[in-house]
């Protein structure tokens, strides 16, 4: 990767609070990485090349043509990097579920930051007789030590900076990443056009159900089942077998990988086209398969969904209309 001034458009990829899976997904495009290298001057990509934060700071604003940003905003450091890359980038893409909608770590917004830290430092194997907590600033005998401040709630990328495009998935599937890279290269060569600002890229416009190979009979159910409690029929719709599957609310683009492997869709591609609130859409889809008109019976059927908050907003809580639980807001304040 060149990294020097070659006159080519500049490319960056950066992670904030993330697991690294997005980077692995990009590397799993294999030879496509060489296309990126051939068409771009890769100026910043910590996982794949040696680069320096200060080099980015030294660039003129807007110097980077395209930045793929993965990870959510968990602390002040994450937010600083988001602001910096926004300033330096012409096109900033929220890449992957964490940046788009908070992903699994966004479930932390169901708890207060105090509870999150408390749990980690009072666990069954924790030896903490002085009841210590991490100190943002600590006077060690030799000098003062600092660690970044943990934010009260986890934020998505577009909650701290303006985002041009969204690329969903946990992680985005490699074939979708390749397609987006191809598109951008075509645009650079004057052979294509960018989608309208704010668009979702690298995904489909329908739902996971539309990609799913399982047969749907529009059958209604009397009972929800947990996946471990049944031997699921491999060819029938999981929701019609009573397993809570997120397919109806979830954007297509992954080729329905989880249902193909016998597991329910978990919703990692985020809300389907036109859906304002993912959980609300899923609740209405789930309600439509319930085979009852009797309120008491409906209630007892719904009791079969053991964790509505976690299952309806599994990947989406931080990016949803709710954003966090009342408990978290109450103790953390509206930040």
């Amino acid at each position, binding site marked *: 990767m060149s990294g020097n001034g070659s006159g080519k458009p500049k490319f960056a990829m950066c992670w904030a609070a993330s697991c690294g899976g997005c980077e692995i997904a990009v590397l799993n495009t294999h030879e496509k990485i060489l296309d990126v290298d051939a068409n771009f001057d890769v100026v910043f990509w910590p996982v794949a090349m*040696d680069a*320096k934060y200060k080099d980015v700071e030294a660039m003129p604003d807007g110097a980077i043509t395209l930045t793929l940003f993965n990870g959510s905003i968990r602390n002040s450091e994450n937010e600083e990097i988001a602001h910096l890359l926004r300033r330096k980038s012409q096109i900033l893409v929220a890449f992957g579920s964490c940046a788009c909608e908070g992903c*699994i770590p966004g479930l932390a917004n169901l708890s207060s930051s105090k509870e*999150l830290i408390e749990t980690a430092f009072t666990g069954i194997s924790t030896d903490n007789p002085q009841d210590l907590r991490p100190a943002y600033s600590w006077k060690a005998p030799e*000098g003062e030590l600092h*660690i970044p401040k943990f934010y009260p709630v986890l934020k998505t990328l577009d909650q701290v900076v303006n985002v041009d495009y969204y690329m969903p998935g946990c992680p985005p599937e490699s074939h979708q990443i390749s397609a987006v890279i191809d598109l951008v290269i075509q645009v650079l060569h004057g052979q294509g056009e960018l989608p309208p600002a704010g668009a979702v890229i690298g995904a489909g416009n329908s739902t996971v159900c539309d990609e799913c190979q399982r047969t749907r009979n529009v059958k209604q159910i009397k009972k929800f089942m947990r996946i471990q409690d049944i031997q699921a029929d*491999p060819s029938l719709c999981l929701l019609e077998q009573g397993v809570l599957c997120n397919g109806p609310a979830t954007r297509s683009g992954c080729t329905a990988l989880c249902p193909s*492997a016998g*597991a329910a869709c978990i919703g990692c591609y985020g809300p389907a086209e036109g859906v304002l609130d993912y959980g609300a859409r899923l609740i209405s889809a789930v309600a439509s398969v319930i085979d009852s008109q009797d309120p008491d019976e409906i209630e007892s059927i719904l009791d079969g969904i053991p964790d509505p908050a976690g299952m309806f907003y599994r990947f989406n809580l931080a990016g949803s209309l709710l954003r966090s639980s009342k408990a978290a807001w109450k103790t953390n304040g509206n930040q």
Partner: protein
Amino acid sequence: MQRITIDPITRLEGHGKIEIFLNEQGDVANTYFQIPELRGFERFCVGRPVEEMPILTNRICGVCPEAHHMAAAKAADAVYKVDPPPTAKKLRELLYSAFYVTDHTTHFYALGGPDFIMGPDAPVAERNILGVIHKVGLEIGGKVIQARKYGHTVVEIIGGRKVHPCTSIPGGLTKGITEEQRQEIEKMGRWAVEFGRFSLKIFNDIVLGNQAYVDLILGDIYTHHTYYMGTVDENDKVNFYDGMVSVMGPDGERLGKYAPSEYTDWIAEHVEPWTYLKFPYLKKIGWKGFVDGKDSGVYMATPLSRLNAASGMATPLAQEEYERFYSTLGGKPVHQRLAIHWARLIELLYAAERWVELATDPEITSPNFHTIPTQTPTEGVGIVEAPRGTLTHHYWTDERGILTRVNLIVGTTNNYAPISMSIKKAAQSLIHNGTVVTEGMLNMVEMAFRAYDPCFGCATHSLPGRMPLEITIRDETGNPVQVLKQFC
């Protein structure tokens, strides 16, 4: 007091920062290795159904989601007191073996290996995977890509997805494999065995054939005498998926073995206020600080630890390499941290052999891959060997299987104390009387912790090989007097 800050700036999230303090004589007074991250999984998983854990805890780490997926599935099995059918256990282990080949390949060729293949004194621009390709030959690049590709293919066939597998549930799996898939997996496994042998031959020819490298491995800078941890099977051989956790003393005497459910009798986690991560230690010995020796509860959990804590390898080619390893390095246990790289390659070969063994197991294509749990869920512990150390998941649930409490001791965390000690020792060995710090020193300090393949915040992988570092030496008022950069 003078302060030197090492910021691994590839980790913009700030997953690790080293502070080195010098005393008035210009010698190292102390070092601090800080981890500034917390995401709070142990808290926000409470309230979730236990069968969600294999997919929720995947997201702790996208580099080794397979390890969390397996530990979570095993803990959920234990919560329901359900024993998955043999086919399910074998499929999980098969997925896991293929994953190990991929993961160890990435580390050896891209991260740790370049120090040896190119040599620690080689120009920095060459000490990376591209340098390795230039030195060993172009075909090696293709082989490394192939090894990663094959491993991910097996993960996808059994786990449903290349990253973040989704098929393990309490009692087994949501799917099995067909005969056609089995044949494909076997073919790739046989290739992986040859790749494992090839990798050890490279290590043999280039590293062991060079006395300077052997001296470096055996040198004192990178040696610590600690306890060693690793999971063993019923024959006391290394196992990644299941078994008892064995603990070997620094003197070569075994402290004992424990079952996953007994881990709280063995492990405790010490707290320091200047970091978000805790320091696990052996409870039976006690926390005595960041010190070596039999009286210090500090232990290491790495490929080398697993070899030290077991009696051998369960497959023939890996066993031969195991014997050669100890006869070359002077018997068990081996304390030299740089030998972790060699041990990693022996594990890679074992993982490949195990991959073939399981792919050719007559039960592997059986449709009996799930047992429906029948008992009331309560509490359970699941342990696997993550590539970077013993991984423990402990769950408590209500009678509906909803989590009420979660405790996790994650792979690299085990090594937090020994890594901190290795950094301090390297710094102390290299900085005297205020010596001007050189670029070579940066690399030597970095080598001290790279051997552990640390994965703090779960993705400290920097693929072309090197972690950019910047060291700033400040005077008493905090003004920088010298700035050294590597890859910056």
